[in-house]
């Protein structure tokens, strides 16, 4: 059975096909209004999330399907100590497909090993967030008109920022991609990812100052320093405002720069940037819903 656990499990042809479907949904939404009639999506969110859960639910509703689930582990049998395996085996009897968010890394992989229906990883700890990456990929393709020959700057929390890890793994497979990694020393990318980029031969540089590199970028992907990933509050407070993108900082940037952010933001992008035509983070949200629709369609079709 097919699942969406990690973006690298999906080939570039498959990702391109998902983007083609999303483009078609955007162009002809009525054609898909009944595509998931009588189908149910379960959203098992062990960790709070507003936009990802609502995006999945909106996607399923637009496809004519229905949703059920929980938005908080304390409101489920998990609070009684039920394992992930037992939960998905149970929910798999009610729903046709499951989207899971969990604070523990690898939980969706465990779920996929036991589930009778497709599992979508809606974010697991600081590990992966593949459906955010699907949103990011469609944003890049629609905004840049290409998926290759891009200099991609990733800025902020690159250690725990799961959206960064998934995006790097996806974009590294396209041609002539170069990453510029901007972070404080403590929040650099994890070692497995650094080794992975080296083994793929993907060029990347690691710097601490955004000002020094912003003029070289085609894409700037900002991330939030996430309080929930820190064991030590003092470390969070010290690092949370490491990077704040302002109109002044954007001055040396290219006119066709695409500024992205997985949202929610706290203060790493000044609201004054929102009106800049280069700011694409709210378009990203919309594209995310269409890509989740395309993914749900693909996984349900594969499970037939």
């Amino acid at each position: 059975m097919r699942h969406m656990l990690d973006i690298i499990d999906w080939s570039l042809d498959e990702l391109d096909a998902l983007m083609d479907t999303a483009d078609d949904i955007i162009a002809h939404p009525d054609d898909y209004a009944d595509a998931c009639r009588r189908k149910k999506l379960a959203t098992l969110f062990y960790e709070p999330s507003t936009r990802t859960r609502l995006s999945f639910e909106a996607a399923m509703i637009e496809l004519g399907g229905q949703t059920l689930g929980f938005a908080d582990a304390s409101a489920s049998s998990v609070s009684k100590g039920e394992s992930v395996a037992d939960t998905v085996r149970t929910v798999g009897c009610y729903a046709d497909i499951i989207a899971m968010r969990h604070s523990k890394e690898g939980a969706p992989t465990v779920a996929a090993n036991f589930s009778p229906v497709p599992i979508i990883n809606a974010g697991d700890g600081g590990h992966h967030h593949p459906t955010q990456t699907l949103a990011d990929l469609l944003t890049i393709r629609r905004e840049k008109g290409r998926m290759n020959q891009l200099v991609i700057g990733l800025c902020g929390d690159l250690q725990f920022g799961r959206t960064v890890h998934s995006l790097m793994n996806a974009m590294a497979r396209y041609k002539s991609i170069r990453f510029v990694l901007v972070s404080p020393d403590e929040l650099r990318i994890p070692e497995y990812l650094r080794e992975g980029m080296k083994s793929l031969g993907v060029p990347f540089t690691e710097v601490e100052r955004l000002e020094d590199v912003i003029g070289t970028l085609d894409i700037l992907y900002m991330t939030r320093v996430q309080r929930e990933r820190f064991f030590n509050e003092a470390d969070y407070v010290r690092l949370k405002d490491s990077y704040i993108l302002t109109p002044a900082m954007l001055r040396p940037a290219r006119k066709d720069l695409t500024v992205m952010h997985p949202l929610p933001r706290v203060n790493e992008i000044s609201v004054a940037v929102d009106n800049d035509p280069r700011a694409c983070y709210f378009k990203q949200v919309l594209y995310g819903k269409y890509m989740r629709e395309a993914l749900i369609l693909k996984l349900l079709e594969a499970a037939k």
Partner: protein
Amino acid sequence: MNINEIQDGYVIDHIHAGGAMRIYRYLGLDKLDCSVAIIKNAKSERMGRKDIIKIDELIPLNLEIISYIDAGATVNTIKDGKLIDKQHLTVPQRVVGVLKCKNPRCITQTEQEIQQVFVLADAEKKQYRCYYCDTIHKPED
């Protein structure tokens, strides 16, 4: 037991000097009722010094554990006092139930019944990554 003569059992040979106790521990040989001999720092033409483990019974032997700890070891199977098989090991692609993920955020930390699975990430550096959370495990960890 006469450690030179095994009727039915194994001789795990060419273990790097100092590695035998780790194999002994990981294989759970301390729980066996049969005779087990550990020869440390035996002279070896090829290796200078080596360790050897002799097990005086044909128990189910987890070669994955031995090859993870020392892929250079050889496992000789003895039956009726004769050598019937000699296995040269290779670095395993997967290691199950041997390593423990050190990532406090890994699902295996909270759901203890999940079997620990590691996948070979770099054969040269002998690094494995957790199947669930991708955390790299180095030999020195």
